[in-house]
């Protein structure tokens, strides 16, 4: 029977043979599809993990922002002003998480006002003449006499164009305390700088602070690089 009548298998054989490449194609496609799915799923999972890893800080921030107005304010400052204005605790927390970033932009200081001040010091106090002269050949007596001119004139320039006051009003040598959150650019602790503020120590230098600067208005035509003109008596 089997001889007379080709079995179903035999009949199907050519069909199967014709289908074979199709099947293989399908199998290959499904493997590729699986690979592709695994790849994307993997990415998705990784991404999810990355996002989920932030869940604690997100929920912490959310929770604390809801609970603490101070924290909320700090976050607000962070969003509005950028990272550089974060203070104290927040900046320290951030420093742990991210590498420290520069907090300000370095600027070129414009030469003009420096030159104007220098020419004032020269005009009133002969400042450049004094510094540019070789002092080693003169006695202290002679240098001292010239120093009077310089001191007198330069001081007049300071009085007229700047308001200068000490940073700390206490007498030098007295005990002072730097409170938590002191401005390190105005008050510099030296020596045994350890632990947490407040720091207590002795005032070595009172510091100086310019309260006001009143430099002259300069005409646009003036060459400020001329610090003192050459004089020719006719």
């Amino acid at each position: 029977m089997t001889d007379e009548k080709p079995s179903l298998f035999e009949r199907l054989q050519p069909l199967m043979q014709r289908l074979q490449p199709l099947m293989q194609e399908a199998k290959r496609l499904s493997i590729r599809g699986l690979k592709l799915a695994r790849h994307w799923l993997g990415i998705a999972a990784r991404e999810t993990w990355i996002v989920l890893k932030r869940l604690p800080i997100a929920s912490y921030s959310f929770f604390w922002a809801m609970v603490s107005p101070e924290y909320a304010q700090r976050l607000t400052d962070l969003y509005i002003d950028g990272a550089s204005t974060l203070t104290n605790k927040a900046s320290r927390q951030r420093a742990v998480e991210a590498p420290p970033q520069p907090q300000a932009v370095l600027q070129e200081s414009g030469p003009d006002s420096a030159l104007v001040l220098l020419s004032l010091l020269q005009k009133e106090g002969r400042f450049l003449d004094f510094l540019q002269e070789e002092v080693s050949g003169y006695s202290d007596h002679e240098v001292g006499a010239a120093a009077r001119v310089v001191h007198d004139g330069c001081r007049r320039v300071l009085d007229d164009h700047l308001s200068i006051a000490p940073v700390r009003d206490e007498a030098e040598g007295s005990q002072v305390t730097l409170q938590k959150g002191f401005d390190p650019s105005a008050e510099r602790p030296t020596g045994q700088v350890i632990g947490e503020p407040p720091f207590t120590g002795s005032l070595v230098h009172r510091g100086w602070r310019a309260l006001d600067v009143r430099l002259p208005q300069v005409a646009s035509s003036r060459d400020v690089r001329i610090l003192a003109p050459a004089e020719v008596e006719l």
Partner: protein
Amino acid sequence: MSAARYAIGIDLGTTHSALSYVEIAKCEGEEVDQRILAIPQLTAAGSVEERPLLPSFIYLPHPDEHTPGDLTLPWGGDPTRVIGEHARRQGVTTPIRLVASAKSWLCHPDVDRKAAILPPEVPSDVQQLSPFEASVLYLSHLREAWNGAHPYDPLDGQDVTVTVPASFDPAARELTAEAAKAVGIDNLVLLEEPQAALYSWVNDSVGRWRHDVKVGDIILVVDVGGGTSDFSLIAVTEQDGALELTRVAVGEHILLGGDNMDLTLAHVVKQKLKKNGVELDRWQLQALTHGCRQAKEALLADAEREAYPIVVPSRGAKLIGGSIRTELTRDEVTETLIEGFFPEVSVDERPAQRARGALTKVGLPFAQDPAVTRHLAAFLGKQAGATEDLEGFVEHAHWASFLHPTAVLFNGGVFNAEVLRDRVLQVLNQWLAAEDAPAARLLEAHDMDLAVARGAAFYSYARNHGGVRIRGGTSHSYYVGIERSMPAIPGMEPELHALCVVPFGLEEGSEPVMPPQEFGLVVGEPVRFRFFGSSVRREDQVGDLLEEWSEDELEELEEIQTSLPADKLKRSEVVPVRLQAAVSEVGTLELTAIPTQGKAVGETSDWKVSFNTRGGSSADAE
């Protein structure tokens, strides 16, 4: 009441000018909020700074001396005239282009005040200015500074007081008023500087002054500024139960001030250096003067110090090698300043007068005697009877040889030194003690450099908004000279009579006065009158004809003149006129010729009689 928002006082000084102001709406009674205007000015080529004082100097730069644009001010400005600090500095090295002490020239009787004569005697390519133009320039600089700071309240809409020395004659006052008008100041009044100083004192006391003085007090104001000394006497009187101040006398114009003192010290030190073989040039002398001023201030302030070092820097770049070191000692200051300018003199001493050489160049009539105390003795001696007519004053003892002040107010930068205040007070009290009079007391003043400007601003405010006012009116009585017609006698000048046209103390804005005498004026020809003033003849009334007077009673001023235009009248017709005098609200004296039958002849109007500010001697020379 005017609609001005600010009341402004301008001190137009010989060496410095300043502007003070008060905002009227913020004032309450005698509590006045005073401010000083920061005046932008060139302090170097191409640099502008604001300073409270504007040095009264004008520099006329050579066209190639500065880069174009380097003399720009915030309001642009005129690059051919530099005003202020930079002008003063430039003048040190180039004096031929510096206009200084223009105010002293403004009351110089021998020059034409509107002719370009400053700086005097310079090469012809320097464009000179007239003293009048200089005043206009200072005022317009102040105007621009004010308008820059207050763009919505320009100066011409504010109440402005400009100060003049008490010793300014009518012509100089009129020139000052004219200068102020020329820069657009319309609501103007003039105020005498010593009065301004007293107003400042009143202002500082915030009403307490009524307890510090009493009726019968005579306040002597001694004002020694940078270039001039000015004295005034102000009596405390009573009107309807309220205290009043009345200015009873002013002194003569004395060109003597703090600058003379610094210069004298510099010459003392210069002579000392010369003995050691060190010669100084003009630049170094200026630096030395500056050093002496500082040394003087230090030595006068600290009685312990015996000497103060002075270093005259070299002009070249070698500062250490080229500087000259010297010092000013206490003995030198005492001898030169205190004994030279404030000597202990007796009250009957008078300033020395040297006869001037006939060939002197025209220059400023500087005081020939440097002793301020001697000038003061002369002033008080001359004014011995100044309070005779005032009510409530003790009859002056007939043997009193001088007027006895009971209080003294000092003003001017010189008196920042306490030693000098004490010295003047001490000398004055010696005079008083010699005549058994009580010692004069000191009225404490503050900020002597700015007091005049502050007092002027206070006055601007007080005169429109109620407040104490110093009464006074004209400080002199004025006369025109009339030649008696008499047969000519060889070698004899025709006899001169003086007709009083303005009585003493004619107040601002009061009814005009007119002597009954008539004059015949020739139409179409300028007519001149000799003009006299007296600071002591208080009792003369309008129309009084003086036939004789003692020499120091009447002082001849510049002549007055008028010209009758020949429009409606025939040329060389003689028109009878009367002279009318009035003191305007501004404070200037106005003389008018009024034709007695004018209205009948035709539409002849009144003619202004003007002061001849063209100078006697130069007019003769033309």
